[in-house]
């Protein structure tokens, strides 16, 4: 992998930047692969990367119907945290955060992880009790979490309005949490996977599976059929669609989750702020835009756009917390299709169909999980047994009724 560094940048600058290598190649689709991964989002790409890097499985293709990183990975609000309630979730997401902390150097690509802290607000004493419940759970899980008083919060966010319609009674913060650059994560993993020999094929849509005696043998695509030893579905909002091609029904609803940005201004918000009570979260990007989002538009949608009611909700909630933002202007709104599960916990691992694996159900919160998701899925695919960190995330948990209810436990799941 051609090194990126201050020196190489200066060197290339002197030569007019005429000699930079492509981030990835455009290989031709081969007739067969050991592993075919459907979807070149963060999860598909990191799974491919770790398969090649850690498990020596290099004959891997990642098939992408559009452009790589163009799905939810390329349109999310970047919250990167591990303050989850249930031990299984906490262990998994903290593994992810730890990988994120080293990812820039590991991939030799700056993913701009900004550990500015994620602050969750409580708007009533009852809220505060459940935050305390969460904060303690997280601490016991070995993850940093601190309860804050309204004064502490005012100090962190001087612009905040403590006696809002839902007054701020306190909150808790995970200081190691923060945001990172969504596109860079996709591109960094793509570039690294490519250097390890992975074939990333863009503009190649999977349209069906080749199934014989209960086993997946390959996939049908818009560029022709491909034989595959193993296949992994990593398509987020389209999980149900792909699963249906293999005859599987999913406990998933695909909904449009919106995000929006203001015009960029000089730094005025240094932490990531979230509130489950009023369903809104906000941060300021490095470029200066105020980036906010909230609830999904509450009905099935595969159209990558949202309506106006949610925008009104989110903006009104934002101005309730930070009235000063009222004079900023909203520049753009967009949406991604999120695959939401009943317990807002992902669905990872093997499926009833042999050689078919799935990593989905990421819903509104799978960006922060990209490194760990890839790491554990790569293990699961390579060894045909679930990695211990995701043992409880399997599809079978629904039949058993063994849900991991993070939604109920932690409100907004971004």
């Amino acid at each position, binding site marked *: 992998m051609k090194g990126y560094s201050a020196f190489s940048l200066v060197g290339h600058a002197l030569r007019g930047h005429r000699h930079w290598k492509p981030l990835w190649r455009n290989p031709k689709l081969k007739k067969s692969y050991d592993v075919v991964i459907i979807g070149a989002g963060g999860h598909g790409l990191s799974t491919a990367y770790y398969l090649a890097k850690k498990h020596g499985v290099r004959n891997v293709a990642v098939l992408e119907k559009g452009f790589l990183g163009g799905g939810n990975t390329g349109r999310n609000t970047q919250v990167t945290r591990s303050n989850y309630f249930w031990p299984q979730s906490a262990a998994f997401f903290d593994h992810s955060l730890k990988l994120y902390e080293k990812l820039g150097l590991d991939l030799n690509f700056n993913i701009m992880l900004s550990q500015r802290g994620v602050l969750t607000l409580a708007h009533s004493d009852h809220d505060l009790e459940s935050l305390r419940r969460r904060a303690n759970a997280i601490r016991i899980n070995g993850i940093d979490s601190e309860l804050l008083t309204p004064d502490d919060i005012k100090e962190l966010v001087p612009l905040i309005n403590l006696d809002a319609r839902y007054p701020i009674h306190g909150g808790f913060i995970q200081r190691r949490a923060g945001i990172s650059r969504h596109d860079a994560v996709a591109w960094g993993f793509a570039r690294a996977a490519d250097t390890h020999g992975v074939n990333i094929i863009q503009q190649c849509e999977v349209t069906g599976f080749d199934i014989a005696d209960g086993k997946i043998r390959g996939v049908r695509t818009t560029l022709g059929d491909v034989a595959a030893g193993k296949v992994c579905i990593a398509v987020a909002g389209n999980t*149900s669609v792909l699963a249906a091609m293999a005859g599987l029904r999913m406990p998933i609803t695909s909904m449009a989750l919106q995000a929006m940005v203001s015009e960029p201004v000089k730094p005025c918000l240094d932490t990531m702020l979230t509130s489950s009570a009023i369903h809104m979260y906000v941060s300021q990007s490095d470029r200066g835009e105020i980036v906010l989002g909230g609830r999904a538009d509450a009905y099935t949608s595969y159209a990558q756009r949202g309506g106006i*009611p949610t925008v009104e909700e989110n903006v009104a909630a934002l101005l309730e917390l930070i009235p000063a933002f009222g004079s900023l202007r909203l520049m753009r709104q967009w949406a991604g299709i999120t695959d939401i599960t009943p317990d807002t916990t992902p669905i990872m691992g093997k499926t009833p169909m042999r050689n078919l694996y799935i990593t989905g159900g990421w819903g509104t919160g799978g960006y922060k999980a990209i490194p760990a998701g890839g790491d554990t899925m790569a293990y699961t695919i390579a060894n045909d047994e679930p990695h211990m960190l995701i043992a409880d995330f399997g599809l079978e948990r629904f039949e058993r009724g063994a849900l991991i209810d993070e939604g109920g436990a932690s409100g907004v799941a971004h």
Partner: protein
Amino acid sequence: MLRIACPYCGTRDEVEFHWGGDAHVARPGPEVGDAEWSDYVFSRENTKGVQLERWCHVFGCGQWFNVARNTLTHEIHAVYRMGDAAPDPDR
């Protein structure tokens, strides 16, 4: 923003309604096995294309009804009352 034609009140804004998921789901009896039961409780059609779904006009007449809506374009092809038969798809 969706505009939905309530069969009782006429066309109203999305914000007056509550989305209720798949229509025409049969509730199995207590005798079924875990697999069948969880399929009923958790599995969703989640159709990409025309989906039959339930909506309730919570801010209006309070009635539940069914809608045939294209989840890709958000176009609404049919609205029909609870208990009415689903419209023929290739219409």
